[in-house]
């Protein structure tokens, strides 16, 4: 019943996994609402804050507000990408479907690819309404930063995926007990990612931690564009390089934990 070539079959398996999640969102509107709820709420709170500061403090606050809103929007890219992968994996765990998936011909890399694609869909579903609100209510157009914004997006997405793979690995290791990490782990990195302030503001002992995060370099780069009007290619290069290291580490961790789960028999009982 199988057909060649293998690459076409692999694409079809990835589509099958993607279709599973798209069908789920089509059937449950609260899930769709949940995608956009938090990014929109964040945008409203920070947008009004920036408007208030601009009214009181003038032009300096306008520029600061733009950096603030840019930070909110871009950080949501990382958050939504990370949650997109981790929550989609947990959907399989909650529905006790992992056993069926892992006895099918789906390779682990195909499952990861499908999860990444689901996360892109989820991220866009959350970010696009927030971008629209920022533009309509606060005249903040993130794309006015230029094509470089796509590179910021890419880096934060990849960073979110790396963290998500780490979370999925922990779920494979510790089961449902680790699922709270899917919501909390990236929030814990927010202070070190220098989303709203430069890395230099952090105590010197914490700065190496920040500089090890691709996200901190993205936000330094973003502030370079917003505040000085210059693209910091050094920061973008550092972000891409660090992302390569983070993704490689996360992939190794996932591979190791997947094998450990097969040794322990956790793939059948992970929902418990």
């Amino acid at each position, binding site marked *: *019943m*199988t*057909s060649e070539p293998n690459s076409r*079959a692999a694409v*079809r*398996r990835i*589509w*099958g*996994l993607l*279709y*599973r999640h798209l*069908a*789920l969102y089509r*059937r*449950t509107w609260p899930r769709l609402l949940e995608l956009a709820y938090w990014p929109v709420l964040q945008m409203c709170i920070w947008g009004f804050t920036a408007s208030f500061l601009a009214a009181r403090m003038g032009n300096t606050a306008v520029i600061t507000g733009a950096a603030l809103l840019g930070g909110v929007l871009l950080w949501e890219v990382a958050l939504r990408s990370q949650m997109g992968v981790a929550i989609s994996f947990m*959907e*399989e765990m909650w*529905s*006790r*479907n992992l*056993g*069926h*998936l*892992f*006895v*099918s*011909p*789906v*390779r682990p890399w195909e499952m990861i690819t499908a999860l990444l694609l689901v996360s892109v869909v989820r991220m866009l579903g959350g970010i696009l309404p927030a971008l629209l609100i920022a533009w309509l209510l606060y005249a903040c157009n993130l794309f006015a930063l230029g094509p470089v914004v796509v590179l910021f997006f890419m880096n934060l997405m990849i960073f979110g995926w790396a963290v998500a793979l780490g979370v999925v690995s922990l779920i494979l290791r510790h089961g449902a007990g680790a699922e709270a990490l899917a919501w909390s782990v990236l929030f814990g990195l927010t202070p070190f990612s220098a989303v709203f302030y430069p890395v230099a503001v952090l105590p010197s002992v914490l700065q190496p931690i920040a500089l090890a995060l691709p996200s901190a370099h993205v936000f330094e780069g973003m502030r370079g564009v917003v505040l000085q009007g210059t693209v910091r290619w050094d920061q973008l290069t550092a972000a891409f390089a660090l992302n390569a290291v983070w993704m490689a580490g996360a992939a190794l961790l996932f591979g190791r934990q997947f*094998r450990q789960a*097969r*040794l*322990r*028999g956790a*793939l*059948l009982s992970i929902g418990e």
Partner: protein
Amino acid sequence: MSGIRVSHLTKHYDDTLAVDDISFTVPVGATVGLLGGNGAGKTTTIGMLLGLLIPSAGTIEVLGHDMAHDRFAVLARMNFSSPYVSLPQRLSVAENLRVYGHLYDVAQLERRIAELAAELELGDLLDRPAGKLSAGQKTRVALAKALINRPELLLLDEPTASLDPDTGDWVRTWLERYREETGCTILLASHNMAEVERLCSDVLMLKRGRIVDRGSPHDLLDRYGRDDMEEVFLDIARDRHHAVTA
């Protein structure tokens, strides 16, 4: 070529020995029962046959492929059903079958779904969420999922658990017909002795991870001097009677 060839298969979790050096062969086209009480090692054995579990020792060959090194070559030719592994509850029956049809790269998928719906009487259920079905309906949907790729090897873990006698009989009759029509090899783990007697050409009796007896249901009944497999099962489980060896 055998459907399944297991040699000196062993699995231990830390200090617990779940499967202890078992060897058996399932010929192509045969239906073999894997019997044993709770904790006997049935699920662990099935997990290793499916590649979900890595054995501690021993080898597994499925449809001529070594599962340790070549499992993806054979996973598309086999399938699995268990009441303890669910399908996504919020997806409709048709959506679930579509997902697995894509995963198994089934050609002419919509036609295959229509065939299965007709054969397993799922026509009225296709648009209903899988989570809203009765136990009997869920079993039929699980069977449809397990047959979506027309498997050459089917592993069934308690296929009629929690079904009423009428639905259980319907499933058994359907499996008998499917096996006759397709020549599919079936490994069946069950606690229902009447089911095993009816469906299986051979039985492997597991206890504390070891195969303690094997043979056709007829041979086992003769050997233990019993009228039904339930008594044979109890004899073995409770060590209350030893088979009269030929």
